């Protein structure tokens, strides 16, 4: 069915305790409002086409006030119930039932997501992009910032939206019951490439997550060769690779580039061809993106690509 492969749908799927109560609320409210539409529609059609007695009495202005009294009273009671239910749900999703297992700093930028995992040991801290790994069954705190304009963080199957507003530190909690990939997307207009500002939440079993985190915390394997020096001369102003001198902070950290499934904030899958394309003509693929087109000699480019392949 069409809805089955809509990765941002939140009306048929809710996969965590921050989104499940809302899914129920959604269906209850949707049922009520559809019922209201049907009732009013039927009343309207009946009013239009009902059989009428021949005109004998003069109309009185105040006939029919009972319609308003009854209709409004019923609406008020329905609304009272709906409001209290809505408030109870709001209270329920405002905070998780227990303290967060993990805090992840997410910084929204034009037009990608910087994801930082903190640790007491500075050597264990790392930064990645557009892909948030979380352990299942645990509430996770997302601390949201923006370095430029307002963006909105949204993983519909896990939680509602929260704006990332420059100057403010907003918070959002998410939780995934089952391992899986949950799509996210910026939903506040943030510039020309607002459409291409997707990300993924990858929920893994705690064991898998720990292994991933361990691997990410390691610096890049030290591959030597021409590709690396091309990187250092062309790319390191914006991109960082831990374990090398490349420490640029404008673009995503590429230390473990090959562990990611997508590039360019969800625009393309992470294949050799796509990477090559992206390096040569990002301005055609994602016009306005902060990365310029790189017209590298063929040899340099091949070397750079094979270097990037080593960033596992």
């Amino acid at each position: 069915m069409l809805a089955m492969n809509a990765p941002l749908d939140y009306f048929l799927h809710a996969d965590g305790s921050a989104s499940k109560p809302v899914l129920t609320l959604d269906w209850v409210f949707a049922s009520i409002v559809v019922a209201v539409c049907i009732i009013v529609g039927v009343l309207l059609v009946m009013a239009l086409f009902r059989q009428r007695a021949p005109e004998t009495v003069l109309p009185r202005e105040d006939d029919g006030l009972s319609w308003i009294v009854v209709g409004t009273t019923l609406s008020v009671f329905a609304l009272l119930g709906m409001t209290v239910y809505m408030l109870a749900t709001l209270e329920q999703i405002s905070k998780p039932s227990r303290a967060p297992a993990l805090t992840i700093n997410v910084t929204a930028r034009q037009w990608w997501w910087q994801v930082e995992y903190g640790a007491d040991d500075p050597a264990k801290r790392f930064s990645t992009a557009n892909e948030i790994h979380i352990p299942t069954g645990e509430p996770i705190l997302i601390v949201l910032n923006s370095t430029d304009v307002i963006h909105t963080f949204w993983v519909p199957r896990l939680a509602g939206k929260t704006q990332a507003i420059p100057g403010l530190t907003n918070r959002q909690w998410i939780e995934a019951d089952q391992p899986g990939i949950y799509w996210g997307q910026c939903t506040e207009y943030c510039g020309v490439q607002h459409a291409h500002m997707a990300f993924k939440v990858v929920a893994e079993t705690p064991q898998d997550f720990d292994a991933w985190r361990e691997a990410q915390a390691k610096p890049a394997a030290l591959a030597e060769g021409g590709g690396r020096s091309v990187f250092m001369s062309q790319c390191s102003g914006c991109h960082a690779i831990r374990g090398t001198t490349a420490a640029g902070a404008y673009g995503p950290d590429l230390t473990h580039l090959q562990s990611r499934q997508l590039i360019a904030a969800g625009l393309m899958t992470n294949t050799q061809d796509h990477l090559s394309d992206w390096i040569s003509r990002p301005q055609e693929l994602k016009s306005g993106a902060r990365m310029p087109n790189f017209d590298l000699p063929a040899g340099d480019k091949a070397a750079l690509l094979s270097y990037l392949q080593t960033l596992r």
Partner: protein
Amino acid sequence: MEQTASPGTFRLTVDLCGAAAAWIILHTAGFALSSYACYPHNSPAREPMLPHFGLALGSLGIICTLAALLFCWSASASWRGIRNTPGARRFMAGMGLLMSLLFLVATALTTAAILLISPCSPWK
């Protein structure tokens, strides 16, 4: 004039605006205070920054609801006094009664929000 029971202009104005004013005060003050108490500067607070915040807001809600109830009672008294005398004043009294009823519901629901939602959550 014989209509001694008929409410004066001031009374009609109070009936029309009283409950609405009670709600607007509760709504605006509640919003401003809770926003400040729980998000005072650049990041959310764990605890309300104002002392006795929950108690104060709850009391305000109940006081405003009672006030709205009072205005409702006043408006219905005015309406009963004038309902059989057609004219602009009767119309104003009727508007006052409906207005009071609507804003009584509004005040009660706003108070419900105060009672149901915890002031700040460590998450927000």
